């Protein structure tokens, strides 16, 4: 079984110039965690994700420093303050420029392995040779496939 067999073809996408706050609203309504960022020709430029927004608004001195935890810190309003700073920015400022890209002919096993190897991306983008977006595969798509087909088809 290949990526093209299990991928979702109808994909919600965003473009570079769109407003971060607007997109976040859209993602919450549609319950999406990750959206592909594409150019006007449908080529993948990156991904826009709730993960990336969170890492932008949680100060890096908390996540990358030597603090094991911050339970001792009261609500100092830092998340809200930092979100307000980025809400009016555009997708290009916040997006992750190196999402997981897989080929239409990639095996489902290799897509699953790619998804596990990445700590921050929950979506693999299926692209053609010239990076045109063909579809996406999420973890749940793989699980859906294994549960329904029972045994992985080697054909």
């Amino acid at each position, binding site marked *: 079984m290949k990526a093209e067999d299990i991928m979702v073809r109808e994909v919600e996408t965003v473009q570079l110039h769109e407003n971060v706050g607007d997109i976040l609203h859209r993602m919450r309504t549609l319950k999406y965690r990750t959206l592909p960022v594409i150019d006007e020709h449908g080529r993948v430029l990156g991904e826009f994700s709730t993960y990336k927004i969170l890492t932008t608004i949680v*100060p*890096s*001195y*908390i996540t*990358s*420093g*030597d*603090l*094991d*935890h*911050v*339970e*001792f*810190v*009261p609500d*100092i309003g*830092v998340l809200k303050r930092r979100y307000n700073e980025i809400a009016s920015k555009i997708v290009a400022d916040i997006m992750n420029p190196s999402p997981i890209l897989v080929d239409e002919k990639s095996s489902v096993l290799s897509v699953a392995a790619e998804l596990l190897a990445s700590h921050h991306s929950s979506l693999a983008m299926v692209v053609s040779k010239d990076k045109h977006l063909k579809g996406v595969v999420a973890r749940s798509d793989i699980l859906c496939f294994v549960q329904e087909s029972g045994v992985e088809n080697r054909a």
Partner: protein
Amino acid sequence: MHNAEEHLSHVIFGWDPTWVAVTVLLLIYGIIMLEKFNRAVLSLLGAGLMIFCGVITQKQAMAGIDFNTIGLLTGMMVIVAISQKTGMFQYVAIKAAKSVKGSPWGILVMLSVVTAVFSAFLDNVTTVLLIAPVTLLITEALGVRPYPYLFAQILASNIGGTATLIGDPPNIMIGSAAHLSFYDFLVNLAPITPVIFAVVLLCVWFMFGRDLHASEENKALVMQFNENEAITNPQLLKKCLFVLFAVIAGFSVAHSFHLEPASIAMFGAAVLLLLQSFGQSLHEKDHAYEGVMAEVEWTTIFFFVGLFIIVTGVEHTGVIALLAQKTLSLTGGSMTATAAAVLWVSAIASALIDNIPFVATMIPLIQSMAPTFGGEEALVPLWWALALGACLGGNGSLIGASANLIVAGFAQRAGYPIAFLEFLKHAFALMLLTILVAHAYLYFRYLV
């Protein structure tokens, strides 16, 4: 001292060993300054060149490595690697910030004092790495810019490190080479550091302190930080405190028992490694042990090993003794002038280059002055001048000491970059002022 001719025949192509050794030293120090390559790799390459070119034999190289310095550094790194997981640093920092009721200037002073005290007994880099995130959280709550706080902490860590034998690598090297004990450092350097620290804080007040303001609401927010939540593992904390105090007490009495500091630090490290996972399964013990070993800064350790060999190579050619003679002829063989020269040259050099290779080179230079001043005991003021110059000089620029670079890198990632020139503008004059205070102290205590 070794004679140059003795080695001449061994050096490849019949080159002059002095030129080979000096070229290797300058080349390696020069490339280290470029900061394009890892300094441990460079120093080990230099050490290899000294041996392959025939300047020294492997046996002489090994004899040149000061294993007392290496052991003390490694032992303390292990103890710190275990202690930093306990939340002890965060606890003390928050407690200190709350003790001044959230006043912005009070917090700056308290966090600097905490940094200085921790730096006096533990590694400076670890101290600033653990205090800086808490500082940023507190300044975020206060709504003030973090630069003055981080600036003061950089200075505090280098000043605190000056105070004790184990505070800063230059002191470890000097203590080891000159047989000066922990107690000697405590009696001779610790008294002046609070004065220097107070002078610096006074300047920081005029530079930034008087402009720091926070609303009552924000001060109240700081009072809501809960230091008790910072302690992650009270059991481990008790073990760490026990070993830390035992090791420091051990350092203080080591001299009377003819023990070297490295033995005490390594023994303390071994005891804490045993205690930290006592009662756990073998697998858990191994896991904990591997984790600690990974935290030890092997880069620094190997850097020292290579450096000691490079300096030994240069020393064997007799060029360092020659340089010492030149220095003495410039200062007219006067102790007062020589101490002043050592202090100021060390300070300026340490502001611009890594103070570790500088001190490694200065140690044999000062040692070879012993005959002029009538024996090794007479050199003591020079050792204090070197320690004060090399440690305090690190405050002169952002590249002056490892702690400075670590804070700058950290501030950069946190979105509050510290500009090289801005730091230089504020820090260089302050550094010269601290050297002036040190100069007065040296003069009145040892040279009058």
